[in-house]
């Protein structure tokens, strides 16, 4: 076996079908063409190496079946699946599975094994020396944001749902597989934790660049996670396969249009991030700085506020220019509550939502360390959307301003 580090491999479905059992003969109907749940009908999909492909659709549409045919937990009735160009059916099944990461909704963590034992499952099966298994498992726990010193010796039952999902991801990554299968991996946690896990996973994927098949029934998750999205419809057919932008801008059928939702214009907001928008510089005053000159600077700018930052450039709050005293220094006590803090990773949708919630038109953008990068306004977001994309997300929705 070649041990070279394969970061990703292509996955190709070629006319793959899965038929469940012979349809029971019905006396009063001819050929029973009702699709059985989970069946897959002539699926052809090509997933480039290093991309996340989301399989999305209503339940019973065959998306999980398609996923499980990749690691042969389900064998296709016909057609073939090529992994890195090699027919999956031609490979030894346990060896194949050990080379594919697998994450499922209910986590499937082994309740009687500690977290570190769980993470080391596949390396152990592959016969790695114990010391290397331990080292790798600890590294992975760190990677998914769980401190090995705290978590290694615990049992899955002692963890929260979100922590268990992280362990599930770490376990799937343990042997550095080129392909990952994720079946609603964040489905069992509450929406807030889910969103955090999604963001973290996307950041992880930027470094890992695995080929990922990701099943969900949640179109928002599909749009957020997918480089490519395959929309399944009943009967195990793919109604449309393309990038999220294509799907939202040009749904191929009524079914796809209904499935992505009437608010697909707004959904496009979630495809762009603050980092793509040109920010506006803020008028800044630092705590301890003489108030007089700072007040003059603020007054000279059309925006009537001064942004107060601390010594490390971290925003503290706004000061209204009229409230800045003529002498003395700027103090923290002058600051009034802040606009929402946004990062470059925040989607435009989330940014707008946060700004609306806070009843402001300006968001403060900070970097990873919390240092000020600039300001974003609703106007800037509107201008960005107009200059990008063929369909204006606000067109037809009578955006009152």
């Amino acid at each position, binding site marked *: 076996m070649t041990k070279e580090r394969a970061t990703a491999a292509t996955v190709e479905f070629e006319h793959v079908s899965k038929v469940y059992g012979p349809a029971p003969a019905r006396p009063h109907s001819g050929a029973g063409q009702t699709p059985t749940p989970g069946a897959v009908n002539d699926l052809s999909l090509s997933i480039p190496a290093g991309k996340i492909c989301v399989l999305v659709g209503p339940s019973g549409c065959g998306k999980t079946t398609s996923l499980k045919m990749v*690691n042969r*937990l389900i064998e296709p009735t016909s057609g073939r699946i090529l992994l890195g160009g090699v027919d999956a059916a031609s490979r030894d099944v*346990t*060896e*194949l*599975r*050990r080379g*594919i990461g*697998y994450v*499922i*909704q*209910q*986590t*499937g*963590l*082994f*309740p*009687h*094994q500690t977290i570190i034992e769980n993470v080391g*499952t*596949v390396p152990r*099966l592959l016969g790695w020396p114990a010391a290397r298994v331990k080292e790798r498992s600890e590294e992975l726990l760190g990677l998914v944001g769980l401190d090995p010193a705290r978590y290694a010796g*615990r*049992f*899955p*039952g*002692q963890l929260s749902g979100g922590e268990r999902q992280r362990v599930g991801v770490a*376990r799937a990554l343990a042997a550095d597989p080129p392909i990952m*299968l994720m079946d609603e991996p964040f489905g069992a946690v509450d929406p807030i934790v889910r969103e955090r896990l999604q963001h973290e996973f996307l950041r992880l994927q930027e470094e890992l660049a695995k080929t990922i098949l990701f099943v969900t029934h949640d179109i928002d998750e599909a749009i957020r996670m997918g480089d490519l999205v395959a929309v399944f419809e009943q009967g195990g057919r793919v109604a449309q396969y393309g990038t999220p932008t294509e799907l939202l801008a040009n749904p191929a059928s009524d079914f796809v249009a209904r499935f992505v939702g009437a608010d697909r214009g707004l959904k496009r907001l979630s495809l762009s991030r603050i980092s793509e928008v040109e920010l506006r510089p803020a008028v800044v005053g630092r705590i301890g700085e003489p108030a007089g000159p700072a007040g003059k600077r603020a007054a000279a700018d059309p925006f009537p506020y001064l942004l107060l930052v601390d010594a490390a450039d971290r925003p503290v709050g706004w000061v209204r220019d009229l409230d800045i005293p003529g002498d003395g220094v700027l103090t923290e006590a002058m600051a009034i509550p802040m606009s929402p803090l946004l990062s470059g990773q925040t989607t435009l949708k989330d940014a707008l939502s946060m700004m609306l919630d806070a009843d402001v038109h300006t968001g403060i953008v900070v970097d990873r360390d919390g240092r000020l990068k600039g300001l974003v306004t609703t106007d800037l977001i509107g201008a960005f959307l107009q200059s990008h994309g063929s369909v204006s997300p606000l067109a037809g929705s009578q955006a009152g301003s």
Partner: protein
Amino acid sequence: MIDWGWIGDHLGAILSRTIQHLELAAIAVLFGFAISFALAVLVQSRRSTYPLISGFAGLLYTIPSLAVFAALVSVTGLTIYTAEIPLIMYTLVILVRNIVAGFDATPGDVLDAADGMGYNRRERFQRIVLPLSVPLMVAGLRLASVSTIGLVTITATLGDSFGGLGFFIFEGYHRFFPTEILTGAVPSILLAIAIDLILVRVQRRLTPWASSQPPSRPTFEQIVVGPAGGPTG
């Protein structure tokens, strides 16, 4: 009321009868467990055998012990086989059902994950299914031990060389001597309670994960008990 002097005079006999009692019960439970385990493994690979095995074990449980003794004496004589065969027989219904339930207790997502990680069938059984079946297996062992310790007394009907503490119960009964009856009955009850408590501790030792995780403990519905109404003399 109680003749303490008699008890004091017979401490040696009480001790040796207690040991005999434990031996008779231990042999029955160990053999019963071995047979049941093998049957449960068979059920794992051939599910269709389960109704037959479970039904047969249930049927054995309904045969009165005195009838079995009487039938066996003509075959195996007044030997330990005659004493142990019925005792073993009665453990099967409890143990088979509990071990099978234990093997079935592995959650579906855990099996799915184990397969997806690349365990083969044997590895999956040994490293996942078997350890996870321990709580229900021990639950079965507890029931089987307690009921067997009770049943051992009946082997006293086979003669003085059997019966464990049951010897005192039978002899005391024939002599209308309550002290001796209690000398047999009370320690055998204490024995049953002690073994039960020991097995609870053993289970805690074997399943460190379960103490931290209430949901994985066997729930009341999961503990399979034998059919109502036990074998009687």
